[in-house]
């Protein structure tokens, strides 16, 4: 499309803010009132920038200036794209803004254009000592570079403070404090240029991050961990000569006014575990203020930053998952701000790495401005293959780029079980190793005397355990009988007692039958020779005890049947009881002795 078709263009008011807060970027705001004289319908507007300036262009936004009274939140930005024109003057870059609705012939339209340039201020002189003031130079054109005819145009330059060293004086120049106005110029042809320069003092912090790597790690167990590695440099006039700390601290406004000693970052609300450290370790000079809408972190590097000085540090914080990870249709997506949370920071190279949990697939990143992206892998906690990482890179990033970007991916809920399963299988391996060790036979010779002796002893032990088992059951029976006697003395129910006696009899007979083969097999072992007499003694004593208990039981039952006095029964039982107690003690001792072997 030829430029000449779109004939006229009207009023320009350029307000150029040589930074309100940061020194390095320059913000240019253009209010353009566009008139379409006809005969064609306009749907696009071209913006032109000289190539040298376009190299430093970091951010460009155009919005329609609907009515003056609208609140700030209703700014809608229009789509912009870079275009290449066939017939154009050299050294000019063009951008085309798509208008929301077409402008018919004879109508007019108002457009707001915001352009942010980085590294456009040049410190002159380039090297200053600690006591010198920092002066910067800025070059621009009085006439706005436009591919259309300009009817009326005026330029306002806002400098950080009113200490202006020099500026280009033209006829219609007016200075008000820190603002310079270049009065309305009328009827300018397209592509008219007239250079002006400003040389002024600027002590605002020139913080430039040469490289910033932001790593955002998502864990579906409830946390988004952001780690930011900064490499900062003071981008203003380089410091020469020596630095006197005493002078700096005594009179900071005189000695070292151009230095900055702290940076402020606005982290999202509900940020937790915030840390600030560098290669040496933790840096304690920082302050955190928690708000309901943001978390404000003020960090002070280990030394104040003078011109040309560098520092490198890491800031990390964790964020709750539900604030940033969402689910829509089949995809999950992360909604996060792209730029650095630091206010007033210009970043030369910004690399954002989004680490997604293992098992994510179909990964796609979308940002509202052009970025370079590729994928990597990172091995982190409890990983088998590594986690997929989307790396987004952008150069020349300014705080206006701190908008939300999205990363879409697919993840099935079952993949979350992979981590506990790894831990479980680890423990299972340990238990299996224990089982294997217990069952393994690690003797070298299977026919040596000691091996055979050990095997025999093991078998003997098994038998003895069985004997002990039987004897314990006998003792349990005795206790049963005693209990039934006590019941008798309480309730007087002789029949129940007799029934208990009968069952006890039967069981004890069975148990003694069990005992016999055990004893015979025990006798067969030679290594049991030592323990055998004790076992036999135990069995004999137990039998005695059994007899005595039976006797006592029958005496007591008889006594009740004959209804003789309680004292009578007790008297008869007393002697028996004594013997029983003594025998019990001996049996217990023997059992203990056998156990200890």
């Amino acid at each position, binding site marked *: 499309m030829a430029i000449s078709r779109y004939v006229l263009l009207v009023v320009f008011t350029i307000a150029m803010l040589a930074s309100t807060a940061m020194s390095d970027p320059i913000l240019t705001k253009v209010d353009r009132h566009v008139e379409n004289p006809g005969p064609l319908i306009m749907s696009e507007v071209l913006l032109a920038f000289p190539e040298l300036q376009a190299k430093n262009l970091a951010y460009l936004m155009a919005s329609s200036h609907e009515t003056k009274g609208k609140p700030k939140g209703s700014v809608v930005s229009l789509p912009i794209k870079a275009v290449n024109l066939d017939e154009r003057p050299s050294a000019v870059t063009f951008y085309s803004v798509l208008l929301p609705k077409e402008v018919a012939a004879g109508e007019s339209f108002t457009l707001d254009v915001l352009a942010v340039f980085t590294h456009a201020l040049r410190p002159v002189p380039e090297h200053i000592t600690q006591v010198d003031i920092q002066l910067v130079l800025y070059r621009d054109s009085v006439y706005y570079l436009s591919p259309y005819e300009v009817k009326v145009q005026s330029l306002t330059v806002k400098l950080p403070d009113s200490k202006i060293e020099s500026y280009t004086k033209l006829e219609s120049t007016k200075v008000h404090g820190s603002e310079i106005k270049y009065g309305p110029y009328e009827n300018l042809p397209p592509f008219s240029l007239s250079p002006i320069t400003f040389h002024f003092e600027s002590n605002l912090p020139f913080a430039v991050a040469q490289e910033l790597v932001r790593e955002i790690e998502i*864990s*579906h*167990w*409830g*946390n988004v*961990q952001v780690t930011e590695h900064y490499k900062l440099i003071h981008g203003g006039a380089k410091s020469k000569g020596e630095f006197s700390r005493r002078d700096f601290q005594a009179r900071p406004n005189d000695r070292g006014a151009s230095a900055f000693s702290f940076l402020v970052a606005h982290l999202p609300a509900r940020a937790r*575990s915030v840390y600030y450290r560098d290669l040496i370790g933790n840096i304690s000079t920082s302050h955190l203020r928690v708000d309901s809408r943001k978390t404000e972190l003020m960090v002070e590097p280990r030394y104040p930053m003078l011109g040309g000085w560098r520092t490198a540090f890491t800031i990390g914080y*964790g964020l709750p*998952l*539900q*604030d940033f*990870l*969402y*689910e*829509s*249709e089949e995809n*999950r*997506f992360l*909604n996060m701000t792209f730029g650095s949370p630091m206010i007033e920071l210009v970043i030369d190279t910004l690399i954002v790495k989004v680490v997604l949990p293992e098992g994510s697939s179909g990964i796609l990143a979308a940002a509202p401005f052009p970025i370079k992206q590729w994928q990597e892998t990172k091995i*982190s*906690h*409890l990983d088998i293959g590594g986690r997929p990482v989307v790396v987004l890179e952008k150069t020349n990033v300014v705080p206006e780029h701190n908008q939300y970007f999205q990363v879409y991916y697919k993840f099935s*809920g079952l993949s*979350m079980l992979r*981590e*506990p*399963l790894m*831990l*479980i*299988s*680890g*423990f*299972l391996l*340990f*238990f*299996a190793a*224990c*089982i294997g060790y*217990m*069952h393994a036979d690690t003797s070298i010779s299977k026919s040596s005397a000691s091996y055979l002796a050990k095997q025999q002893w*093991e*078998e003997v*032990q*098994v038998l003895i355990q069985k004997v002990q088992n039987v004897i314990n059951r006998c003792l349990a029976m005795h206790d049963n009988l005693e209990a039934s006697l006590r019941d008798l003395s309480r309730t007087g129910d002789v029949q129940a007692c007799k029934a208990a006696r009968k069952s006890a009899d039967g069981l004890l007979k069975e148990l003694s039958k069990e005992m016999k083969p055990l004893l015979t097999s025990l006798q067969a072992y030679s290594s049991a020779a030592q323990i055998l007499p004790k076992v036999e003694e135990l069995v004999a004593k137990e039998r005695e005890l059994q007899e005595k208990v039976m006797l006592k039981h029958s005496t007591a039952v008889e006594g009740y049947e004959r209804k003789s006095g309680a004292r009578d029964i007790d008297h008869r039982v007393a002697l028996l009881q004594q013997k029983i107690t003594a025998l019990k003690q001996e049996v217990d001792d023997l059992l203990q002795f056998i156990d200890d072997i």
Partner: protein
Amino acid sequence: MAPPAKPITSPVSDAWYPTLAVFMLAIGLVLTASFFIYEATSSKRNCSLAKELTTGGVASVFLGFGSLFLLLSAGVYV
């Protein structure tokens, strides 16, 4: 317009992590203890592989989950 996005949270609420860690590890350690007691007191003749494997298996499940929740409650979001 796309359907409104629903925020995703962890399947187990954050506040439960320390409690779950303690209980699961306790149960896991008790089962481990019983496993080792069985190993120590049984001789080669009368040990049963099935009992050993089940005790070890259940103990490792509880220990696995317990150590996962321990890591999560300590702030290592794996």
